[in-house]
């Protein structure tokens, strides 16, 4: 067995063989926005706007601290957003305008468990 790979060249996410603790087995309910992120991933990849490979690339490029700062679906939406901008689905300006509209709906929207009733 030979291993001539410089240890510092390995990328942070490529952690196979590293010491690790037990795998958490606990489950939790998903909030509405998390389900929507999941749906957006399916829609975006099935319509050809990005691939799962493109999502993985962005997640890897976030760096290890993203796993401390962000939750699972926060990392997903960041990766989906980056890919949708890159593929030209919307611009950063479009996103800014939409985010301002969503913010105006109020603080509880992001934690809602059911869709808002439409007037």
């Amino acid at each position, binding site marked *: 067995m030979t291993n001539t790979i*410089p240890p510092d*060249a390995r990328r942070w996410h490529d952690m196979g063989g590293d010491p690790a603790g037990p795998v958490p087995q606990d489950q939790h309910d998903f909030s509405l926005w998390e389900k929507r992120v999941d749906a957006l991933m399916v829609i975006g990849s099935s319509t050809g706007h990005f691939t799962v*490979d493109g999502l993985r*690339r962005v997640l890897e490029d976030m760096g290890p601290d993203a796993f401390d700062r962000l939750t699972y679906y926060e990392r997903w939406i960041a990766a989906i957003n980056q890919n949708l901008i890159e*593929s030209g689905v919307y611009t950063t300006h479009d996103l800014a305008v939409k985010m301002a509209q969503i913010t105006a709906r109020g603080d509880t929207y992001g934690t809602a468990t059911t869709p808002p009733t439409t007037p």
Partner: protein
Amino acid sequence: MTRVRVHTYMPPGHVRTPAYLRGKTGVIERALGPFPNPETLAYGLPGARTDLYRVRFTMAEVWGDMAETPTDTLDAEIFGHWLERLD
């Protein structure tokens, strides 16, 4: 069976060969056929159809003296451009 060694390349971008297998020697268990190359798909580019192989390694080869059961094997699916043919 055909023996191959996994290249020790360590580029900074998106690749699909885990670091713990780079530089290791295994045998081709089977050819899986061509698949679009995920290493270019990841950048929004077309994925050229690229030959993918299932490569079998012994635990002794992969983990050395740390292997708990040295004769157990590990299969990994690796694209041809990561493999160097040894015989």
